[in-house]
């Protein structure tokens, strides 16, 4: 009898240890062999039954369904969830089974600050989401993230280019905000649940000013015989809000800090409600710039570039920021798209072969599921974020929010649709706020008369360390280009 008892105890111990080792191996797998592919996820142990606590993982999508970018995020999120669930779902070691993802929609309308808090509160407190993904405008995200911070819900922010969404807390030195600024958020623990999977305004401007200094200025000097000491004359026309002012400030800071041969000769803010820009463009034209940096969203950016050429006769180099990387921009620009530049990090229409291969499947599946629609950049960020969430939960082995937060902090998986400086998705580890280091590039458009739209090619940078060649074509001055003052 004692022998039988001993054998039984040993057998149970072996099973427990084996299950523990198996669990450890399974939960460690994503960090040692990272892959966003759903086919590489671990499988449930054949020797144990799933936990009765097992349930679908609830992920809240924070998106403005009344704006094109929000709809793009919705389509991308649904595609990601469909792919993950079709491959069996997400393995949660604590439940010893794979579970599907259940998408909870937090529809933020036009994603203004006044519209975002309600839907996100409902998702967090009523739907009890395990994690949040999304956020588009900086103002809207700064408002709704407070709900996630207070409730300790991991939030992978895929829009909101203001770096305040991760740096407004103590670990980000309050984003440099003055002591009485209401946007400061003195909760380091809560802020540690915020993850920014998006380019910041500083990232935008860094690529733009470096392009002007390294590529456009030498071309102007050689073409027009300008003295090497003449700086490139840059005009900045921008929406008068946190986004526009942030880009302008970062642009000037970067020029000054790096002593770049670029001079901002005119700064022209306008109301966010503006729909017509001739007077602003006339002031810009009077300043005789070599190039115009347009800082706004898609519709206004297209209108500024159109009015500049069509109404004001400002035949210059226009550069737009990456939030405009959407098929709509090409459509709205039409024939006025020729020669235009766009700073970007996701280009369904452009990219060298290695890059196109990585997004080809996404574009194909997206189009198949959405009646041929071309994906935009906001959706690409969002799509990636679902696979980051999946990998983090599998690494954590639980849906416990603190454990998932820690798993996202430690995540190290191959880059997906968004290229990064390291080739992997890793949130900054040297600081306590969580941002990625995306690669951004500059595209130049060429008008295609058959399509009646422009199409882009990457013109800067030529190569990226650890990634390879990016450049597809040389930058050229647009037809009819008029340089600024000598």
């Amino acid at each position, binding site marked *: 009898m004692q022998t039988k008892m001993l054998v039984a105890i040993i057998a149970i111990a072996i099973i427990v240890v084996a299950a523990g080792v198996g669990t450890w191996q399974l939960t460690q797998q994503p960090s040692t062999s990272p892959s966003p592919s759903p086919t590489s996820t671990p499988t449930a142990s054949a020797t144990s039954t799933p936990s009765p606590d097992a349930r679908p993982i609830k992920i809240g999508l924070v998106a403005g369904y*009344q*704006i*094109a970018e929000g*709809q793009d995020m919705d389509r991308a999120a649904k595609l990601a969830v469909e792919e993950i669930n079709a491959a069996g779902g997400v393995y949660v070691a604590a439940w010893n089974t794979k579970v599907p993802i259940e998408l909870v929609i937090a529809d933020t309308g*036009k994603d203004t600050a006044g519209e975002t808090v309600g839907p996100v509160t409902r998702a967090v407190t009523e739907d009890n989401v395990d994690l949040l993904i999304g956020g588009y405008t900086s103002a809207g995200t700064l408002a709704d993230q407070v709900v996630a911070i207070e409730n300790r819900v991991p939030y992978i922010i895929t829009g909101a280019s203001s770096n305040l969404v991760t740096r407004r807390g103590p670990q980000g030195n309050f984003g440099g905000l003055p002591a009485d600024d209401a946007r400061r958020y003195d909760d380091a623990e809560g802020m540690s649940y915020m993850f920014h999977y998006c380019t910041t305004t500083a990232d935008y401007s860094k690529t733009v000013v470096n392009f002007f200094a390294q590529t456009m200025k030498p071309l102007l000097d050689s073409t027009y015989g300008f003295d090497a000491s003449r700086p490139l004359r840059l005009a900045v026309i921008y929406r*008068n809000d946190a986004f526009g002012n942030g880009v302008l400030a970062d642009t000037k800071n970067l020029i000054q800090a790096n002593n770049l041969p670029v001079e901002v000769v005119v700064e*022209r*803010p*306008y*109301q966010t*409600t*503006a*729909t*017509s*820009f*001739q*007077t*602003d463009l*006339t*002031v810009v034209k*009077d*300043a005789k710039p070599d190039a115009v940096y347009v800082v706004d969203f*898609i*519709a206004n950016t*297209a*209108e500024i570039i159109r009015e500049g050429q*069509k*109404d*004001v*006769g400002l035949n210059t180099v226009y550069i737009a920021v990456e939030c405009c990387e959407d098929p*709509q921009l090409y459509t*709205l620009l*039409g024939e006025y798209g020729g020669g235009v530049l766009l700073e970007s990090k996701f280009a369904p229409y452009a990219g060298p072969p290695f890059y196109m291969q990585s997004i080809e499947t996404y574009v194909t599946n997206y189009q198949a599921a959405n009646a041929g629609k071309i994906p935009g950049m906001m959706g690409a960020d969002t799509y990636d974020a679902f696979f980051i969430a999946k990998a983090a939960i599998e690494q954590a082995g639980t849906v416990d929010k603190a454990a998932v937060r820690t798993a996202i902090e430690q995540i190290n998986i191959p880059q997906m649709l968004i290229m990064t400086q390291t080739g992997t998705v890793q949130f900054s580890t040297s600081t306590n706020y969580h941002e990625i280091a995306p690669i951004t590039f500059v595209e130049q458009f060429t008008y295609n008369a058959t399509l009646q739209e422009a199409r882009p090619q990457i013109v800067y940078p030529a190569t990226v360390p650890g990634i390879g060649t990016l450049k597809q074509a040389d930058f050229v001055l647009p037809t009819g280009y008029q340089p600024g003052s000598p």
Partner: protein
Amino acid sequence: MITPSGLAETLLWGVANGCIYILLAAGLSIIFGVMKLVNFAHGQLLMIGAYLAFTASVVLGLNAYLSILVAMGGVALIGLGVERFTFRKVLGTDKLNEIFVSLGLIYIFENAAVLLWGNKSAQIASPLHGLLSLGGISISYDRIAAMGIVIVILLSIIFLMKKTKIGLAMRATSQKSDATQLMGINIEKVYIFTFALGAALAGAAGALYGIIFPFSPALGALPTIKAFAIIILGGLGSIPGAVVGGLLYGIAENTAGYVLGGIWPDAIAFVLLIVVLVIKPTGIFGGKGD
């Protein structure tokens, strides 16, 4: 830096933009003048007009400027339906009822537009290209065409109001609706025609707007506010007031933007409105118009 040519261009663009405002405000003014109805969804009729012209241009391959007729006809028909099935039920009751009906219509029109045309911005492709340059002042041919079309439409409206029976009935109704009924005029027909006419003007404004600027289903709100400011500036119910108010508003808006900076246009335009109301509370043509 302010340059003479820059300022002259700005004034010219102000007139051009003002022409679109005039069309919208004239429609609002006619509806208010005859029916005493405050329609906050008037800007949404402009938006629908832009989309109808866009659809006619893309689907039927119509010239952008011919599509204005489609927009006018289509929005006039919508206006008939709106007057018949919504405003007629509440007209003459508490003013709040009319206001809430028009506020409800804003959401109905915006959501219908999203369902029909989606949320993305659109623009009507114009057959006109390039700039007319005279002495350092440039203006696009589209804006010149817009000014010409607005003048033709306004002359037609004046002819209709002065020289036709329905115009006479409208003017009579605007002054004494009870007495008009005693004279045997079917006031319901006058109302329905008036609303359709006002809507058609909004449709024309929308088509012109869509040729010059991109638009989306959210377009209506700001033009409505501007149109109200213009008819208050010019005098409620007055077409000449809408014309003068529209031009003043367009010029003030553009000049403020050029001289003071891009964040000032709306503030200065509304300062102008307040100044006029302080000096003459009935507006420039208040009580004297048609």
